C-alpha cells in the first residue's frame, strides 16, 4: 500500500475543517489523509486525486464535479461490516479508517446481513423548514419566535447552506458565519424548535407528511454502534412546510466537457472556502451568470492563477467585471469554452467568441488544470414537484421556478429563483412568518429580520449547448449532458430521430436523469438541449419530467427500520402453540397465524406423516388445534334477520343449540367466505369464518350494518382470540369425548350432527361442544375460553392415549376435506366462483332475499357452462398433480408451434389419499359437470399427463360415517 502523508492541495489555513484531527483513509487501495470536517471528495482533492472511476459505458476518465448530492461521477462503495454502495464521495463525511472504492456507475449490494440498527420516529410540527441555508435559517427564526413548533432539517453536517462556501459575505454588518452561529444558538434555545442536521428530506407526501432520512452515526465510522441507530427515518406531519432547498448549479455542454478538472464553479468555491482545498493551480472560469465571479475572486484570494474569466453574456455587469479585472483576471465577454485538451485530465481550455457558430476555428487555448463552469442555477424543486407543485420556465433566470404552490407549502430563497443573499434572507423571514401564521402563530414582537446588502444578479444567458469541434449536433458524441448515464447531445438527437418528442420519452430512450443522481445536474440541461434540437422557442415548452421520491437514495434497511425478521409482521399463535412446538410440528403460515402443518415423527417424511395422520382420523381418532378459525359474536334482537340478509342460506329460524354451515357471497354473487354458525340464544349467534378471512368478514358485516341497515339492532365483536377450539375427529372420537365430558349424552340420537351442547368438562372447565365435521368423520369440536385451551388439549391427549390419538395439522385437514369435496375458500375459489359453480346450489336459498341474490340471474352467472368444481383422478395413481396446473381438452395440441392452447381450467387442490390409495385432485373446469368421465390433458414441465374428470366427492358419498 502506498502512503501519501501530505495534502499538497490543502491551503495553509482557513476552511471549516478541524486540522487537529488527522484522519487516515484508503481509496482504491491507496492510503491518504484528511481532517475531520472533510468529505471523502474534499480529502481526495486535497491529496491531489484528480480522477475517479471511469464512466459507466464509455470508460472515459472522470473527476469530481460537484461538492454535494448532485455529484454525477464520484460514486463509491464504502467498506465496512456491510458495504454501502453508490454513495457520492461528496456526501461521505470522512472518518478515521474509512475505506472506499471508486465505482463506474454501478455498485454491488453487500449480500451479508446489515447488522446496524435503523429506526423511525413519528413527529408532528407546525412548521417544517427544509434547508438550513440563509433562507431556511431566517424562516426557522421567524417561525420559531412565534412559538410555533418548528423542525429545521438540513442535509449537511452543520447549518449554513451556501454560507458554508462563502468568504466575504456579510449579514447584519458582520461575517455571515457569525450570523449562522447566532441563529443556531437562538434556535437551539427555543423550546419548541428542533434542529436536525445530516437529515435529508427525501419525500413530500399527502397531507403534510415529509419523510426525513437522518444519518446519525455514518460520520463516526462504518462499524455499527451498539444500541444506537445508524440512520433514522423521521415521519414528520407538518401543518406548513417551508422549502428553502437552495439551487444546484448547472454544468455547460461543450466538446469534451467531461474531463477530470472540469468542475462546477460553486463547487470550486466550496472546496476552496469550506474545505481549504485547491482543486487546481491554474483555473479558467466560464459562466453564463454573475455567480461565478465570486469563484474567480476567491480563487485568486487563495493563490490560484486565474488567467481568464469567460462570460457568455456580451455585456456582463460592469461592476463585476471591474472587480475581477482588479484582481488581475482577464474577462472575455460574449465567449464560451468550446473544447478541452487533456491527458486525460484537463491541460487546456479552448475559448472562442460565441456569436460565430462552430467557433473552434477562432478558438484559443488557455492552459489550465481547472475549469470552473457555471451554466446557471436550477432551483431545487424536487420536493416541490413531489407535492404536485407546478413549475414555469423563467427566461431571465433561464430556470424552472415555482408556479402553482401546493397547499401548506411555501418556497423561499434560491429554491424560488432568488439568488442574492439579501433576497434569500427576506424571503426566508417572510416565508417563516407566513407559515407560522397559517399554522395559527403570530409574533407580536417587531421582526428582527436579518439583512444583507447585495443586489439581485443581472439576467443570466441561457446557453444550453456550445458548438465546437467538428460536425453538427447529431454528431456531438463528447458533448455530455448526463455524465452519470454517459449521455450526450448526439444521444438526444438520436432519440428525436427515432420519433421521440416528449421529454418523458426522450428521458427513457436516452436514460438521461435515471442514474443514482436522478439527473440533478443533467436533467434541465437536457431539457435545454431538447428544446434546441426540436427547434422550439424555450425549455418551458419542453417541460420537466415528473419528480418522484426519494430525493436522494435511501436504503431498504432504513425504510424497514425495526420491522425486520420476526418483527416484520405480527405472528399470531394459539394457546396450544407451545405444545405443537414441543412435539415437533412443522408450521404453516395462514395469514398471520402459525398453524401446525403436520407432525413428523423422527425420520418421517411429510408425505408419510400426512398419510399416517389421515389414516388415524379415518380409522381411529385424531385431534387438531382449530383455534385460528375466525369467530364473530353477533348479538341483538335483529341478529337472525341480519344473518338472513348476508348468508345465502337462512339463519333466522335456526334452533338455539344448533349449527348450520353458511356461505357468504359478495353482491356480485361470488363466494367470499364460509363457516359454521351456531345459534347461542334467540338474540345471539357465533359465526366462524376462515382463518385468513376473519378481519375482512367482520369489516364487511360492519359495512352492511352501519351503512345500509343502521335500523337493525345488531352488534358484532371479534372473539377469535377469546376461544380455543380442539377438534376431535374419527370413529373413536365419541369414546374419547366420553372421558372428557361425562355429563353429556354423546349418542347420535341425543346429540345429533350439527348440534352443540354447553357442558362442563371432567376437570370443571366450561365448554361448548359442537358436532361439526370438516372430514366427514364423526367429530366433536370442543370450544373453551382460550386460557383453558392448553389444559383441554392436554386432557384430550390424555383421554385419547388409550386410542392412540394422533395430532394432525392443516395438510391432513386439507386432504380429509378434499376427499369429501369440501371447499376451502381462497384455494378452490378465487372471487369468480359462485356456490352453483361449486355444486353447492343447495346452500343458496330460493325463498328468502339476501345480498347478491339478483346476481344469479345475470346472464353470465346463470350460464350453465361456467367453470365447475370437479374431481380429477390422474391416470397414474402415484402422479400428484401440481396445484395450479392447467387443464386442456383431449386431442388439443399443446406444442409451441400449434399456437395458443385453450385452457379449460386449473387444479385447485391436489393430494395423496391414504384411504383411496391413490392421488386425487379438485379442479375448476369449464362446463366440468358435463365432462364427468372425460380424460383431460395436464401439461407439466417437459411432459403431459392425463387425468379423468370425476365428481368432487371421493369418499363416503352417502355420508354414513359422520355419526360414527
Amino acid at each position, binding site marked *: 500500500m502506498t502512503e501519501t502523508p501530505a495534502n499538497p492541495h490543502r491551503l495553509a489555513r482557513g476552511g471549516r475543517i478541524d486540522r487537529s484531527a488527522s484522519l487516515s483513509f484508503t481509496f482504491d487501495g491507496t492510503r491518504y489523509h484528511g481532517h475531520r470536517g472533510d468529505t471523502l471528495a474534499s480529502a481526495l482533492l486535497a491529496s491531489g486525486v484528480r480522477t475517479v472511476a471511469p464512466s459507466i459505458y464509455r470508460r472515459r476518465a472522470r473527476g469530481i464535479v460537484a461538492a454535494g448530492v448532485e455529484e454525477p461521477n464520484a460514486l463509491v462503495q464504502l467498506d465496512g461490516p456491510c458495504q454501502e454502495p453508490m454513495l457520492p464521495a461528496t456526501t461521505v463525511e470522512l472518518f478515521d479508517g474509512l475505506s472506499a472504492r471508486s465505482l463506474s456507475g454501478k455498485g454491488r449490494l453487500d449480500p451479508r446481513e446489515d447488522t446496524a440498527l435503523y429506526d423511525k420516529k413519528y413527529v408532528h410540527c407546525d412548521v417544517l423548514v427544509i434547508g438550513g441555508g440563509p433562507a431556511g435559517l431566517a424562516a426557522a427564526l421567524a417561525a420559531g419566535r412565534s412559538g410555533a413548533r418548528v423542525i429545521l432539517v438540513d442535509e449537511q453536517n452543520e447549518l449554513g447552506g451556501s454560507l458554508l462556501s462563502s468568504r466575504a459575505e456579510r449579514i447584519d454588518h458582520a461575517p455571515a458565519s457569525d450570523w449562522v452561529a447566532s441563529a443556531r444558538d437562538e434556535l437551539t434555545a427555543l423550546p419548541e424548535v428542533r434542529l436536525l442536521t445530516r437529515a435529508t428530506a427525501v419525500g413530500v407526501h399527502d397531507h403534510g407528511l415529509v419523510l426525513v432520512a437522518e444519518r446519525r452515526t455514518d460520520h463516526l465510522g462504518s462499524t455499527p454502534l451498539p444500541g444506537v441507530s445508524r440512520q433514522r427515518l423521521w415521519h414528520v*406531519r407538518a401543518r406548513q412546510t417551508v422549502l428553502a432547498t437552495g439551487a444546484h448549479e448547472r454544468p455547460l455542454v461543450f466538446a469534451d466537457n467531461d474531463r477530470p478538472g472540469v468542475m462546477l464553479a460553486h463547487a470550486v468555491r466550496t472546496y476552496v472556502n469550506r474545505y481549504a482545498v485547491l482543486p487546481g493551480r491554474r483555473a479558467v472560469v466560464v459562466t453564463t451568470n454573475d455567480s461565478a465571479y465570486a469563484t474567480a475572486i476567491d480563487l485568486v484570494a487563495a493563490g490560484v492563477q486565474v488567467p481568464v474569466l469567460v462570460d457568455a453574456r456580451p455585456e456582463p455587469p460592469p461592476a463585476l467585471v471591474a472587480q475581477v479585472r482588479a484582481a488581475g483576471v482577464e474577462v472575455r465577454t460574449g465567449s464560451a469554452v468550446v473544447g478541452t485538451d487533456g491527458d486525460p485530465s484537463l491541460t487546456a481550455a479552448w475559448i472562442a467568441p460565441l456569436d460565430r457558430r462552430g467557433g473552434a476555428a477562432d478558438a484559443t487555448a488557455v492552459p489550465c488544470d481547472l475549469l470552473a463552469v457555471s451554466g446557471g442555477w436550477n432551483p431545487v424543486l424536487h420536493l416541490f414537484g413531489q407535492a404536485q407543485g407546478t413549475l414555469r420556465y423563467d427566461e431571465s433566470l433561464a430556470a424552472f421556478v415555482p408556479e402553482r404552490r401546493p397547499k401548506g407549502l411555501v418556497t423561499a430563497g434560491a429554491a424560488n429563483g432568488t439568488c442574492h443573499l439579501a433576497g434569500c434572507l427576506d424571503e426566508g423571514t417572510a416565508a417563516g412568518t407566513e407559515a407560522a401564521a397559517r399554522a395559527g402563530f403570530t409574533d407580536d414582537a417587531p421582526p428582527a429580520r436579518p439583512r444583507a446588502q447585495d443586489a439581485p444578479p443581472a439576467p443570466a444567458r441561457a446557453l444550453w449547448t456550445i458548438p465546437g469541434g467538428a460536425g453538427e449536433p447529431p454528431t456531438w458524441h463528447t458533448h455530455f449532458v448526463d455524465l452519470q448515464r454517459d449521455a450526450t447531445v448526439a444521444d438526444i438527437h438520436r432519440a428525436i430521430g427515432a420519433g421521440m418528442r416528449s421529454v418523458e420519452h426522450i428521458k427513457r430512450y436516452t436514460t438521461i436523469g435515471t442514474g443514482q443522481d436522478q439527473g440533478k445536474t443533467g436533467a434541465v440541461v437536457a431539457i435545454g438541449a431538447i428544446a434546441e434540437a426540436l427547434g422550439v422557442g424555450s425549455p418551458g415548452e419542453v417541460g420537466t419530467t415528473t419528480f418522484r421520491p426519494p430525493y436522494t437514495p435511501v436504503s431498504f434497511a432504513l425504510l424497514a427500520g425495526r420491522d425486520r425478521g420476526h418483527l416484520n409482521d405480527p405472528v399470531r399463535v394459539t394457546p396450544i402453540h407451545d405444545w405443537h412446538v414441543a412435539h415437533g410440528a412443522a408450521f404453516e403460515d395462514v395469514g398471520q397465524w402459525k398453524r401446525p402443518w403436520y407432525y413428523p415423527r423422527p425420520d418421517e417424511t411429510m408425505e408419510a406423516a400426512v398419510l399416517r395422520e389421515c389414516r388415524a382420523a379415518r380409522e381411529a381418532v385424531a385431534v387438531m388445534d382449530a383455534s385460528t378459525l375466525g369467530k364473530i359474536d353477533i348479538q341483538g334482537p335483529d341478529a337472525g334477520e341480519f344473518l338472513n340478509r348476508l348468508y345465502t342460506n337462512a339463519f333466522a329460524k335456526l334452533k338455539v343449540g344448533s349449527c348450520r354451515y353458511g356461505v357468504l357471497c359478495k353482491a356480485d354473487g361470488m363466494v367470499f367466505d364460509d363457516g359454521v354458525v351456531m345459534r347461542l340464544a334467540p338474540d345471539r349467534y357465533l359465526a366462524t369464518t376462515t382463518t385468513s378471512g376473519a378481519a375482512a368478514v367482520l369489516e364487511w358485516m*360492519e*359495512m352492511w350494518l352501519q351503512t345500509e341497515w*343502521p335500523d337493525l339492532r345488531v352488534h358484532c365483536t371479534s372473539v377469535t382470540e377469546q376461544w380455543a377450539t380442539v377438534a376431535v375427529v374419527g370413529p373413536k372420537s365419541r369414546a374419547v369425548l366420553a372421558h372428557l365430558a361425562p355429563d353429556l349424552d354423546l349418542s347420535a340420537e341425543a346429540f345429533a350432527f350439527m348440534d352443540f351442547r354447553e357442558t362442563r368438562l371432567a376437570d370443571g372447565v366450561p365448554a361448548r361442544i359442537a358436532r361439526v365435521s370438516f372430514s366427514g368423520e364423526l367429530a366433536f369440536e370442543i370450544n373453551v375460553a382460550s386460557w383453558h385451551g392448553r389444559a383441554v388439549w392436554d386432557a384430550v391427549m390424555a383421554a385419547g392415549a388409550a386410542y392412540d390419538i394422533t395430532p394432525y395439522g392443516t395438510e391432513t385437514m386439507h386432504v380429509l376435506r378434499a376427499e369429501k369435496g369440501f371447499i376451502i375458500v381462497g384455494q378452490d375459489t378465487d372471487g369468480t366462483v359462485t356456490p352453483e359453480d361449486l355444486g353447492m346450489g343447495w346452500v343458496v336459498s330460493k325463498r328468502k332475499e339476501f345480498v347478491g341474490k339478483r346476481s344469479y340471474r345475470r346472464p353470465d352467472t346463470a350460464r350453465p357452462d361456467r367453470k365447475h368444481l370437479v374431481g380429477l383422478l390422474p391416470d397414474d395413481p402415484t402422479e400428484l398433480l401440481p396445484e395450479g396446473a392447467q387443464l386442456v381438452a383431449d386431442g388439443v395440441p399443446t406444442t409451441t408451434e400449434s399456437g395458443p392452447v385453450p385452457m379449460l381450467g386449473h387444479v385447485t387442490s391436489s393430494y395423496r389419499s391414504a384411504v383411496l390409495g391413490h392421488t386425487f385432485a379438485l379442479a375448476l373446469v369449464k362446463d366440468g359437470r358435463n365432462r364427468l368421465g372425460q380424460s383431460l390433458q395436464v401439461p407439466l414441465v417437459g411432459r403431459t399427463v392425463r387425468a379423468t374428470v370425476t365428481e368432487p366427492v371421493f369418499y363416503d358419498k352417502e355420508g354414513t360415517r359422520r355419526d360414527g
Partner: protein
Amino acid sequence: MLLIPCPWCGDRDETEFGYGGQAHVPYPEAPETLTDAEWAEYLFVRDNPEGPFTEQWVHTAGCRRWFTLVRDTTCNDILAVHRTGTTNPVHP
C-alpha cells in the same frame, strides 16, 4: 399517506383505515325488479370524478366505524367528513 379525520377518533394515518369506495350507492330496494343492465350498474359502475368525490372509509384499526368523507381526487384534500347517516360535517 393520507391523514384521515375519523369523525370519532380524530386525525389518524391512512394505514389504520380500510377503503370502501364511492359512498351513497345504496343497495337497491328491490333487486329482483331491476333489469340486468340496472343491476350491473349497481354492481360494477362507479363515478370516477376529477375533483370532489364522496367515499366510504372504515377505521379498521380504531373504532371500526364506517364514515364518509369528501376527497378532492386531484390533490387528496379532504373537504368534509360525515358520520354515516348524518349530513352535518364533523370537525373532530
